[in-house]
């Protein structure tokens, strides 16, 4: 994509200026409220994650039983020492929320990369070759959708032993279905464009055609799906950690924080509220960003 505006002199002394594709896109981005809102929320969480060591008032793992279950600053007993209060072990909630952003984002991105790898390659093959390859891949999608994802993930993580790496691999291997569906449909469409048979006639290898002719045209949709999938994976990780079969204590995963807060929620409801709001903002941000990107890159629909 060139960033320079093209201008044509039609020989009439008039100069017609066409905005570059990049500029059209930027203009659309600035006009889309959902996209901007999503981008803001996402940036906020990324900043929290990156700056966690600098902005956290306390160590997220530091326990102080004399300071346990302090309420947030806006309540009567609250103090600025612990702006969001402390949990049942006296750990600072604000610092745990900051460090929790790291876990959510790390898991979200890594799972998405695994899923995108599996889904895109299978989708490319199914869409390009069709026939028996397509049938096998479609069958895989049907089987995957028939399995109850949360239950399988919980069972497998519990059997192998809960840790962040296990959660990432297990979830990554479970959420590739949307990548395949979208990539496959797109490839089927692109395959009939003139430039693909042209490349074939010019003697390009299948690998070249898939990577250099088809892949670049998939990128927009892939980015949209990837963004939405990160949101979905973060939601799944939170559910797993909430059930106690995901990220293990004492790590400050938001889902785990909700599970720990659940024991005390009748007296201290903010222990459940705070990590939940953080999760909500991140997932809402990812969804708005994904939907916004779809509108920005292909306003006619698609994806």
């Amino acid at each position: 994509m060139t960033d320079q505006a093209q201008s044509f002199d039609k020989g009439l002394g008039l100069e017609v200026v066409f905005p570059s594709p990049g500029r059209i896109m930027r203009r659309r981005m600035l006009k889309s409220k959902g996209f901007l809102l999503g981008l803001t929320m996402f940036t906020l969480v990324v900043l929290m994650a990156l700056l966690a060591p600098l902005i956290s008032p306390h160590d997220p793992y530091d326990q102080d039983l004399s300071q346990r279950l302090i309420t947030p600053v806006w309540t009567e007993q609250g103090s600025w020492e612990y702006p969001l209060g402390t949990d049942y072990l006296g750990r600072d909630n604000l610092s745990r929320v900051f460090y929790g952003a790291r876990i959510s984002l790390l898991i979200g991105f890594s799972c998405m990369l695994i899923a995108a790898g599996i889904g895109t390659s299978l989708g490319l093959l199914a869409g390009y070759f069709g026939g028996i390859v397509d049938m096998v891949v479609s069958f895989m999608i049907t089987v995957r959708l028939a399995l109850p994802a949360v239950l399988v993930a919980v069972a497998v993580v519990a059997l192998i032993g809960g840790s962040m790496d296990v959660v990432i691999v297990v979830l990554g291997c479970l959420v590739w279905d949307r990548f395949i569906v979208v990539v496959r449909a797109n490839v089927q469409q692109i395959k009939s464009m003139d430039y693909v048979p042209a490349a074939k006639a010019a003697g390009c290898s299948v690998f070249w055609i898939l990577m250099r002719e088809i892949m670049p045209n998939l990128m927009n949709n892939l980015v949209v799906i990837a963004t939405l999938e990160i949101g979905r994976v973060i939601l799944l990780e939170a559910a797993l950690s909430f059930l106690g079969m995901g990220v293990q204590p004492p790590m400050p995963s938001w889902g785990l924080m909700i599970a720990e807060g659940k024991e005390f929620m009748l007296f201290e409801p903010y222990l459940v509220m705070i990590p939940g709001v953080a999760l909500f903002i991140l997932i809402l941000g990812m969804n708005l960003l994904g939907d916004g990107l779809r509108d920005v890159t292909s306003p006619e629909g698609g994806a």
Partner: protein
Amino acid sequence: MLIYFCKRLGLAVLVTIAVSMISFMMIRVSGDPAIALAGEAATSEEIEFVREQYGFDRPLIVQYLEWASRAIRGDLGESPYMNLPVTEMIGNRIGVTMTLGICALSFAVLLSVPLGVLAAIRPNTWIDRLALTISVIGQAMPSFWFGLIMIIVLGVKFRLLPISGAETPAHFIMPTIALGYYATPAIMRLVRSGMLEVLASDHIRTAKAKGLRWGKILYKHALRNAIIPVVAVLAVQLGFMLGGSIVIETVFALHGIGHLAWVSIGRSDLPVVQAIVLLLSIIYVVLTFLSDMLNAFLDPRIRVK
């Protein structure tokens, strides 16, 4: 229709076989299921005993075929933890989960279809934006968190609803909402886009020109066409809901199969976990098969494909 029926049935059978293999292999991912069953503190003789008792020492394929042929006859083995037949344990619990799933699905339909229709007949108005906002917020809220918030607000603060158990219908209200709202956005979007498409078509214009009442046009001519794709999604959503019930049942202490699965995972009661995964997958396969048939019945164009 018959050819289509046979094709779909064949696919459903193949998927069932694949799913049974996966749920069979699932409990073996950690390497040795005998160690998991015997517990971490078990001696090597105890592990050896469990291995022989359960036949883990035989070739995998023999184990699978025996397990599968028993499963077809309705025998899913015995729970080593409870010393009860797995089918009996599941049978006692499935009613709660089914009730919850069907309530949640009805809730989702009753909320999303009217909203979707309203959004479609008044596009780009406040009601359309309200529907969109509900769907965006709905998709971003973790269902277990939403459940806990309801418990805090409705159950504890205002004491309107009971917070755990399954004794009365009132016990099902909060779990139904928590499980059902998550499916609302998908159904609503589908109804909205379907209605928009149908309302722009020729036969609606003709019906309007004939002077039919607007309500009749909407219901008889537009919604009937727009609802066809929704039927397929409903079956899928019900399948997801039954799968997602593990989280909601845990939050509300509803003793359905989701809760049973969670408890069984915690105590390494592997035959139960395996059976529940298999059962939920088969329910999903049956539901999608039925919805395919219903779709083909409603829309003759599908049968030819």
